[in-house]
């Protein structure tokens, strides 16, 4: 899996990952709340920092690599994933991170996203979802809700949004999770888990945009309301939520319903237990996302580890060829199938 820290620099602190530049995101931007968990996580990875690469596309999220003192590449709009894929396939020894946004990844980069999901290149993708285009100053995005008033939808957006985690599951991503910007410790744990997963890890992160879509996620992220409106998914744990964990999710057939655990007839044994290895369950849970009655699923929806990663398959194919046919001889390659000699 991950490489061991190299001898000289085994003890990093988060400071080692802060470059000497000003962070230029707006005050209170949700992206800032992701930066510090990410910087704090890096020493935990046990990877020499010269082997860590952050790659981004365009949008507010695109600035992220400039704020991580690792190798970094700020790509073009929508293309962070193929840049990262090429890098990781060429260099499986690196820890590759992608930071993208709902516009970058779901809209212009949508095609790359679904293919990256199915290809399962080992990388960690953090998608900052603020449900709006912010860098272009406030247009609706592919995750904006129907009716959302923005500069380009003054009468309300007509599109229905993507549900990013369901899209990722549908495209066969092996690790799919959702977090948010208001609980840094929890987010750091989620990122750690993503990094420990070998293969494509997708983490949707609700990030508040103070300027163009302020409060979009308050219900799900603020301390006072989130317990009642979200359910945190943890492997092998029952799906309970509410301030006192007094409510649970029960499956009626394939339909999740809410049960009140304080009522006599219901017990914790009736509550659905999460299994992050169960793809069918992951779909059911992902589809709770835009429900008006059910809590919004957060945490790890799916974490499959049986599928090998693409870059490992590339290496295996090369090794198999070399083992069965011997290492390529360039001279015979040039000679080709048939040649003749003129003396």
């Amino acid at each position, binding site marked *: 899996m991950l490489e061991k820290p190299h001898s000289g*620099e085994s003890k990093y602190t988060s400071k080692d990952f802060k*470059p000497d*530049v000003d962070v230029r995101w707006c005050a209170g931007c949700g992206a800032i709340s992701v930066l510090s968990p990410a910087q704090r996580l890096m020493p935990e990875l046990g990877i*020499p*920092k*010269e*082997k*860590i*690469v952050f*790659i*981004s596309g*365009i949008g507010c999220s*695109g600035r992220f*690599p*400039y704020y991580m*003192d690792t*190798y*970094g*590449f*700020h*790509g*073009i709009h929508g*293309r962070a*994933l*193929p*840049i*990262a*894929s*090429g*890098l*990781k*396939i*060429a*260099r499986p*020894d*690196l820890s590759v991170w992608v930071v993208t946004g709902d516009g970058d990844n779901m809209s212009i980069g949508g*095609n*790359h996203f679904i*293919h990256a999901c199915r290809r399962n290149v080992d990388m960690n993708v953090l998608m900052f979802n603020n449900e709006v285009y912010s860098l272009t100053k406030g247009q609706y995005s592919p995750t904006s809700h129907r009716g959302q008033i923005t500069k380009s939808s003054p009468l309300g957006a007509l599109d229905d949004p993507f549900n990013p985690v369901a899209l990722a599951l549908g495209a066969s991503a092996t690790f799919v999770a959702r977090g948010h910007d208001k609980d840094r410790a929890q987010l750091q744990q989620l990122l750690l888990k993503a990094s420990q997963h070998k293969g494509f890890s997708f983490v949707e992160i609700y990030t508040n945009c103070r300027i163009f879509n302020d409060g979009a996620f308050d219900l799900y992220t603020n301390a006072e309301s989130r317990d009642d409106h979200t359910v945190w998914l943890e492997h092998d744990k029952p799906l309970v939520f509410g301030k006192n964990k007094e409510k649970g999710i029960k499956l009626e057939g394939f339909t999740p319903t809410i049960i009140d655990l304080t009522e006599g007839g219901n017990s914790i044994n009736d509550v659905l237990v999460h299994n992050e290895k169960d793809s069918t369950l992951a779909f059911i849970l992902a589809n709770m996302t835009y429900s008006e009655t059910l809590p919004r699923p957060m945490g790890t929806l799916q974490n499959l580890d049986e599928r090998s990663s693409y870059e490992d398959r*590339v290496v295996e194919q*090369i090794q198999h*060829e*070399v083992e069965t*046919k*011997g*290492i*390529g001889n*360039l*001279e015979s*390659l*040039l*000679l*080709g*199938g*048939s*040649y*003749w*000699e*003129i*003396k």
Partner: protein
Amino acid sequence: MNTMNKLIEHLEEVTVRFAGDSGDGMQLIGTQFSDTAGFAGNEVNTFPDYPSEIRAPEGTLYGVSAFQVHFGSKNIHTSGDFVDVLVAMNAASLKVNLAHVREQGIIIVNAEGFDDRNLKLAGYTNNPLEDGSLAKFNVFPIEMNKELKKAFIEVDTPTKLVQKTRNIFALGITYWLFNRPLEATVNWINKKFKGKEDVIMANVHALQGGWNFAEKNPDFRKQFIIDKSELPPGKYRSITGNQAVALGLVVAATKAHLPLFLGSYPITPATDILHAISGYKKYGVKHLQAEDEIAGITSAIGAAFGGSLAVTTTSGPGLSLKTEAIGLAIMTELPLIIVDVMRAGPSTGLPTKTEQSDLMQAMYGRHGEAPMPVLAAASSADCFDMTLEAARIALKYMTPVMLLTDGYIGQASEPWRIPEIDKLPEIAPQFAQDAATFKPYLRNPETLARQWAIPGMQGMEHRIGGLEKEDGSGVVSHDPMNHQKMVELRQKKVDGIANDIPELEVIGEQEGDLLLLSWGSTYGAAKTAVEHLQAQGHNISYAHLRYLNPFPKNLGDVLHKFDRIVIPELNLGQLKNLIQAKYVKRVMGINKVQGKPFKAVELEEKLLTLISMRDIKKWPANKKEDLPVDL
């Protein structure tokens, strides 16, 4: 088996064209015929001419697939202007190809392909084999299935298998016609069908059967002998431009001691490069068949950032999609090879046909001031050398490099003298050395290349991207004067490559009246035309450009030593416009956009007109009314 009555004629060069339905296996026997010509010591140049449809309905005009082989004992630079021998497997293939055949040329037809249905599909009201319309050709109608059956009469082979060897039978007939050895094709059959003894037997038997049929047939009275060429000693093979690019990439990576990465998306006529590279796993090559053209190039950019010799391959429409990413590679100053196998556009255009119309896009088709080196291969074999050159420039100058080939040389084949790998020069990537002084945009004062620090190099962690960077430090900068400086630096870096490429060589008089200047795949036809004219004593000089950005530094001097410059191009004058703008020199164009390469004879005729016009009216550079600008 009496050869006593057969006549022998010696020829210097011959063009043979095999034509049939898409499923008739014409590409296969054309390739075999070509390989055998090389094997027999001839110079060869071939061109496949196939429809966009994979298996168009049988017998239709649009389903005709052809393969042309031009071979001879010397000066074979093109796939041949006129066809001396046409092999046509049905009425449609005769109709489509007849116009290529020279008078008194030989036409070998499968007479069974001229039944009512085939005639109707081809749009013939009368059978051309019977109505006398082919009187000016030597026609050999053969009932091939029937003759094939006869050839297999003593062999117990399933009829289905026998019928599949009809193309090989036809190949056997042509081998007799030119007294070719069967050896190379027999070896190929053995290799191709290894383990399937019945298939090997059937094919070898059909090949020999075709030969025997002609040998015994009293209508076939004459064999043609083409003497061996005087080629420099060495090992040779037949190679297409696409194959040569693929091999060039593997060799370049070896010479640079870098891993090779190809990010590509299938597109005609460039896909053969992807096919080849994907089979090179045992050479450690990595490739990604990406989800689209953009992912093709951006994955390559990612691999370049990681220290690979990174490549993307495409054709026109794909190049359009890649343009934004090319700008990113220019901005991040990463080494990258972009191979554009040009095809006829715009839009989907004629996907399987050739053109040289992406030159302007290669030069300028990006937003912003985005200069990049542009190279163009002159022939199939030259694709190998120019691929090495693209890699050398990309790695030495830390820049993306565009290599232009086209559908013609990409798919056409010619003999290639296989180089000795040890004797090819090493390529040195510009890796950063010292972490203490490292800055991502510090430049080599001579080449202006920045240093290449790749992930894994300790103490050189840095961030790059599409935003403008401060000179030296590489920190994001919106400073106006810094932007001016960086734009100029990027331009200067590319311009400076002119000091590192060969000067333009003029063949013929070094100054005078008329200079023919060609680029890319027009090399063969242009060279042949000029050789003919010079041999006839005409005063015409010739030069060929393989470097289009920057131009060779003596190009301006060369141009101004001639009264008249003429540029043949498979476009409406793109190089002409570049040269007129840069050197303020009037240029005439010979322009063809028919999806086909120039014929040497076309150029020869137009050049003769020009030569004769000099006597009538001299053409001063400043009087535009004196001469047509284009021919």
